C-alpha cells in the first residue's frame, strides 16, 4: 500500500478495530434487526442506511489518513474537515510500543505507539498496521532514532535482534500479588460484604447490587485490567533498549530506549513486605496523558516488574541504574515529631551519578533518579520544619509520576546536599554533552 511518493496508508480494517466494542455491538444489533427485517418493515431500511453511513465514514477516515517516514521525522496526516498534519521527530522518541487489543488480534492488526519527550510531548499513534509489518517498522524507527539514515540499508529487517530475557513473572505469583494489593483487597472486601449480605438477606443484596453495580463493575475492571496488562510480563534486554512484553487478551510489547529512563521506583506495599515482594516501575519523559488515549492506555509509568523478590529487583536495577547508591542514611530523630508515620521509611543516599530516596507512610517507595536527568533542584522549608531545623530537597525530573524528595533532613545537611547535587548534576551534564 505504498504510493510512489512514500505515503502509506493504515490497514483497511482499522476503522472497525478502532470502533472496538461498539463495532461488535452494532454488528450484533444489525444482525438481529436483519433477522427481524425478513418479515418486512421499513425500519430495517433506516437501520441499514445508518450502518451504511457509518461504514462510509469509516472508509473516508481510512482513506484520508496516511503516514510516511520523512528523513528524521514520522509524519501522519488525517482528517477531512479539520485536516491534521503531525510531525514527530524520531530523535525525541522515548519509547515505542506495539499494542494489540483483543479485537485487533482477531483481525491480525497491531497499533504502533511512539512516545516523544518534551513538555508538549505527544504520542504518535499508527492504528492499525498489519501485525507482520509492525515489528520491522518498530526496528526501523528505532534504528532511525539512533541516528541511522533512512535510505541506508537497514541491517536485514527480518533478522531478529538478539534479546536476552531477564525475567518473566509467574502467573501464580501475579495472582497472589494482586489478591493482596490495595486494589485486590478492596475488591475482595466488596465481594465478601456482598456475599455476607446475600446470605443474611437476599433481598437487601439485590438492592445493593443494583444500586452499586457501577462501582462493583469499576473495581472488577480495575483488577481485571491489572491482571490483563501484567499477565506473563517479561523483561528482555536488547541492543535497542529494554523490551517489556505482556498481556493476556490485549498484548503489548514496549521498547524503552536506553538512556531514556528518567527515574525508577520500587514500591513495597505493607502486605507485600511481609513476603519480601516489590514492584519496579520506570518513569519516562512526556505528557502524562495525550488526547485520544483512552483510560486503559494512559500509563505514565512503565511496569518493569509487576511483582518479584528483592533480589530479583536488585538484579534488574543493576541493568537500569548501574551505579546506584548502596547506603541510605536515615533522617535525624527529631523528624519523628514532624512526620511520625514516615519516619521509619525516610532515607536517602547518593553516588556520583545517581540519587536514591525512600519515603512512604504505609507502603515503602524507593526512587532512584540518575543525576544526568535532573531538571532542577528545590529546597523547601515549612514553618514546622524551620522550628525543627529541617528541610526537604526535591529532585525534579522530566518524568511526571515519580517524585524524588529528600524529606526532612537537617538544614545544614540539606544545604550541603543541594550544593553537592547541583555540582554532580552539572558534571553529569557536561560528561554527556561531550
Amino acid at each position, binding site marked *: 500500500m505504498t504510493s510512489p511518493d512514500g505515503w502509506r496508508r493504515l490497514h483497511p480494517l482499522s476503522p472497525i478495530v478502532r470502533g472496538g466494542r461498539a463495532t461488535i455491538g452494532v454488528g450484533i444489533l444489525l444482525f438481529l434487526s436483519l433477522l427481524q427485517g425478513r418479515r418486512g418493515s421499513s425500519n430495517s431500511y433506516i437501520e441499514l442506511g445508518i450502518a451504511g453511513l457509518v461504514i462510509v465514514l469509516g472508509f473516508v477516515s481510512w482513506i484520508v489518513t496516511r503516514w510516511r517516514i520523512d528523513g528524521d521525522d514520522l509524519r501522519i496526516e488525517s482528517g477531512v474537515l479539520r485536516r491534521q498534519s503531525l510531525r514527530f521527530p524520531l530523535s*525525541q522518541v*522515548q519509547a515505542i510500543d506495539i499494542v494489540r487489543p483483543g479485537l485487533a488480534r482477531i483481525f491480525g492488526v497491531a497499533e504502533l505507539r511512539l512516545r516523544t*519527550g*518534551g*513538555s508538549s510531548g505527544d504520542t504518535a499513534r499508527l492504528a492499525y498496521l498489519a501485525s507482520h509489518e509492525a515489528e520491522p517498522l518498530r526496528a526501523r524507527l528505532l534504528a532511525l532514532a539512533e541516528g541511522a539514515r533512512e535510505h541506508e540499508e537497514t541491517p536485514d529487517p527480518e533478522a531478529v535482534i538478539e534479546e536476552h530475557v531477564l525475567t518473566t513473572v509467574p502467573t501464580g505469583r501475579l495472582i497472589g500479588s494482586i489478591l493482596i494489593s490495595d486494589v485486590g483487597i478492596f475488591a475482595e472486601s466488596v465481594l465478601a460484604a456482598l456475599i455476607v449480605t446475600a446470605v443474611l438477606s437476599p433481598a437487601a443484596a439485590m438492592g445493593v447490587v443494583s444500586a452499586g453495580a457501577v462501582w462493583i463493575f469499576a473495581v472488577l475492571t480495575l483488577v481485571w485490567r491489572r491482571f490483563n496488562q501484567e499477565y506473563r510480563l517479561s523483561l528482555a534486554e536488547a541492543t535497542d533498549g529494554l523490551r517489556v512484553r505482556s498481556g493476556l487478551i490485549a498484548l503489548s510489547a514496549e521498547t524503552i530506549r536506553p538512556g*531514556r529512563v528518567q527515574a525508577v521506583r520500587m514500591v513495597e506495599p505493607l502486605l507485600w513486605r511481609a513476603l519480601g515482594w516489590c514492584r519496579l516501575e520506570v518513569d519516562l*519523559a512526556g505528557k502524562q496523558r495525550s488526547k485520544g488515549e483512552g483510560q486503559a492506555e494512559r500509563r505514565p509509568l512503565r511496569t518493569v516488574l509487576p511483582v518479584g523478590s528483592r533480589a530479583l529487583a536488585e538484579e534488574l536495577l543493576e541493568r537500569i541504574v548501574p551505579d546506584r547508591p548502596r547506603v541510605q542514611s536515615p533522617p535525624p530523630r527529631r523528624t519523628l515529631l514532624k512526620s511520625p508515620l514516615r519516619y521509619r521509611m525516610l532515607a536517602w543516599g547518593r553516588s556520583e551519578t545517581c540519587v536514591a530516596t525512600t519515603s512512604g507512610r504505609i507502603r515503602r517507595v524507593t526512587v532512584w533518579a540518575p543525576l544526568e*536527568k*535532573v*531538571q*532542577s*533542584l*528545590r*529546597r*523547601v*522549608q*515549612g*514553618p514546622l520544619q*524551620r522550628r525543627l531545623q529541617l528541610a526537604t530537597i*526535591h529532585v*525534579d*525530573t*522530566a*518524568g*511526571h509520576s515519580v*517524585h524524588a524528595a529528600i524529606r526532612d533532613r537537617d538544614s545544614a545537611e540539606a544545604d550541603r546536599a*543541594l550544593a553537592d547535587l*547541583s555540582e554532580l*548534576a*552539572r558534571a553529569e*551534564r557536561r560528561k*554527556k*554533552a561531550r
Partner: protein
Amino acid sequence: MLTLAALIAAGVVAALGHTALGLACLGGALVLGLAAERFVSRRFHAWGYAEREDDLLVRRGVMFSRLSVVPYGRMQFIDVTAGPLERSFGLATVRMHTAAAASDARIPGLDRAEAARLRDRLAELGEAQAAGL
C-alpha cells in the same frame, strides 16, 4: 483589603456621628495596615534571584521558604508576562520552564528593562549549555 475596609467603616461610622466608634475603627485600620505592611515587606524581601555561572537561583517565601536551582542547560523556554497592574507600574514577571512540571523558577515584579535583559541573557545561556532530555 482589610485595611481599606476598616478605613471605609471608620468613615461611615464617623459620618453617622459616633465619634468614639469611628476612632476605634481608625485605630483598627492603622494596626491592620501596619501588620499588612510588615507581611508584604517580609514577603517582598524574601524574593530574590541570583545568576550563577551554570544555574539560576530563585528564593522566595517566608512561611514556606523555597530555594530553586535551575540549570540554564535544562531550560525549555522562558516567558515574560505583565498583567494590567504590573504594566501600570512598568513591571514584568519572568518565568523559566524546564521539562519537569514541578520546577518553579518565577521572578515577579522585575523592572521592564531588567526583565528583558534577564530574558535575553537566560536565552543565550540556555542556548549555549543546552542538554538533551
